[in-house]
């Protein structure tokens, strides 16, 4: 019988659809002098082949730790991981790092926020792209260089042949992120993690990079997990969205459903805090008061309760489970979701009290004037 990693990386005969990644009740905790930091606390989701999932949350919500746990990048004696991560049916969590290394690059690849620090400043671009090609695919130097050049063309880098001989500092930030994508694409991964890939980039370049990732995804039938703090970024570039708060998944739905019918007051507040172009200048922005919870001692009940405008006594004592909404595939964890009678009641109270509350976000609520 072939070894598990061999079985995993046999490229031929990949099914075209079905679940690629299944995460079940995943917990990641760090032992620190202050106590256990429960960065990921019981997360369950699955990702189909060729789909793009956005994981959204503020800093400290556990979104980056979740992505890195799945990739197997977090190991060490102070890290506790429990639960299950199945990739193409294989359990990854109990796999030693040497096995994971076979998967990185070939099956899973990652691009990071800062394209400057994730490229080796002393190595020419060509060498950095060809290295995984030669290590994983066993290509000759010449073949690898030819592949590298075509990869750079794939990611729309002009004068690809010349760029191969350049060093990272000779490229702009956007170009470097394109190179990172080319490196990630080099061995044809089935799953791409993009951790805040555009936060360090200009808006004009940001949309180009996101479009590029989407294009590569469709061409290669690759799955993408896009980690970001900006709901605006994921809206146009993912099929599904998972919202994280305090190490937990608090809402999960297809992108269209989520924006049309969001249930969690947290999701609503995140969206409301984005400045909208179509609103007049000096519009008051909605903010989320307070700060993300301390992951060593998370609050009892709903973790968002201390910052929630619609909080009630039950929220502070009883933690809401992730339950399905009316629409299949839409799950949320809230006792009094957006649209519930209690929500409207509290909203009316708040409005009477003179507290600024955003216009209800729903179908057509925020997009008037944009899609015209």
């Amino acid at each position, binding site marked *: 019988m072939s070894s598990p990693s061999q079985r995993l990386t046999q490229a031929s005969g990949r099914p075209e659809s079905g679940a690629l990644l299944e995460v079940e009740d995943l917990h990641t905790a760090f032992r620190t002098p202050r106590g256990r930091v429960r960065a990921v606390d019981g997360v369950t989701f699955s990702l189909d082949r060729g789909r793009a999932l956005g994981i959204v949350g*503020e*800093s400290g919500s556990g979104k980056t730790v979740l992505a890195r746990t799945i990739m197997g990048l977090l190991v060490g004696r102070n890290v506790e991981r429990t639960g299950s991560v199945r990739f193409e049916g294989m359990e990854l969590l109990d796999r030693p790092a040497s096995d994971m290394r076979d998967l990185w690059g070939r099956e899973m690849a990652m691009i990071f926020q800062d394209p400057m620090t994730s490229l080796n400043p002393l190595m020419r671009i060509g060498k950095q792209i060809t290295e995984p090609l030669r290590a994983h695919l066993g290509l000759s130097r010449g073949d690898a260089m030819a592949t590298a050049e075509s990869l750079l063309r794939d990611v729309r880098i*002009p004068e690809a042949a010349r760029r191969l001989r350049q060093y990272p500092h000779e490229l*702009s*930030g*956007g*170009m470097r992120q394109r190179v990172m994508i080319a490196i990630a694409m080099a061995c044809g991964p089935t799953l791409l993690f993009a951790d805040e890939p555009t936060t360090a980039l*200009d*808006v*004009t*370049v*940001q*949309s*180009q990079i*996101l*479009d590029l990732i989407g294009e590569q995804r469709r061409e290669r039938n690759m799955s993408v997990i896009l980690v970001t*703090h*900006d*709901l*605006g*970024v994921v*809206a*146009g570039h993912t099929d599904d969205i998972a919202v994280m708060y305090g190490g937990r998944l608090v809402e999960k739905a297809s*992108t*269209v459903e989520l*924006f*049309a019918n969001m249930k969690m007051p947290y999701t609503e*507040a*995140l*969206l409301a*805090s*984005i*400045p*909208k*172009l*179509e*609103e*007049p*200048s*000096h*519009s*008051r*922005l*909605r*903010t*989320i008061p307070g*700060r993300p919870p301390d992951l060593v001692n998370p609050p009892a009940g709903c973790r968002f309760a201390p910052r929630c405008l619609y909080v009630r006594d039950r929220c502070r004592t009883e933690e809401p489970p992730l339950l399905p909404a009316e629409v299949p595939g839409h799950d949320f964890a809230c006792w009094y979701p957006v649209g519930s009678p209690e929500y409207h009641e509290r909203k009316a109270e708040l409005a009477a009290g003179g507290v600024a509350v955003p216009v209800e976000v729903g179908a057509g609520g*925020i*997009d008037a*004037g*944009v*899609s*015209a």
Partner: protein
Amino acid sequence: MAGTGKAHLSDDGDVLLRVEDLVVEFPVGRTGLVVNAVSGISLDVRTGETLGLVGESGCGKSTTGRAIMQLPRPTSGSVTFEGRQLTTMSTSDMREARTRMQMIFQDPISSLNPRRKVRDIVMEPLNIWKRGTAPERGDVVDRTLEEVGIDPMRAAESQPHQFSGGQCQRISIARSLVLDPSLIICDEPVSALDVSVQAQVLNLLEDLKARHGLTLMFIAHDLAVVKNISDRVAVMYLGKLCEVAPSDELYRIPAHPYTNVLLASIPVPDPSAQPAAVVEVIGEPPSPVLPPAGCRFHPRCSNAQDRCRQEEPQLRSIGPGHFVACHFPVHDGTEAVAVRAPVSSN
């Protein structure tokens, strides 16, 4: 993208800051070449208004902000602040003048000295200028810290790394307020922050502006943020001005192709919105060492013509308060409504 014109400068007496023909160049090593960071821009900021300055990284917007502060002094051009000419001022006069204009920087953590207590950092300006007695200084600092939402008790015993990014930005704001300036130049103050924290800081700036009668110059690359906080917006590209307009008008009828590109690039938090692919910008900005001739935007502009490659357009008026530096603007100010008029990419 010429913007060497001055048609947009107002003649009113209530101009707090007036920048004319500002040029900033940096030498490139010892090659004899220069980076044309800012190539002759003119701006004015009226008392009590917020002027937004928007553009991609490398367009010279931060350099403009710093050149106004004379840090470093610009290569040429004039900066008039509160009726006084800063560019020719002596170093000691300049030191004094800087107390009336303050700056907030992008990186909330790098802009605070990591080895000092937060309260001391906020007190530093008062110590430098020896304002009041020690208890008076303490009062001012505590009051300002409370105003920006930082607990003075905690500030007295904590260093910056014990605060989050958003809180560090509040501390920077407090430091810029204690000398009671009239102008605050905010250099990308929210681009390193999460959206939820960004909203808090933007609201805070609006409140402080109203309470202290401040004038703001708000530099950022995100047009949605700039539009939210500004009364007027100036769009910069490669060291030149493209368009100056009241912010609502700039969004409603953007005239310069580059403004359209910027607007279209902003991710819309709505999956049903039309993909913005209709406005495609070609590549990335060219090097400011050898800027293109003619209009600086022409190599990336989808409707560039021969005239754009040769003749540099001047800023001209196309409506009340609306100025554009383009030979073939998308919009000439006569159409009533043109929401994000698309530039064909073909």
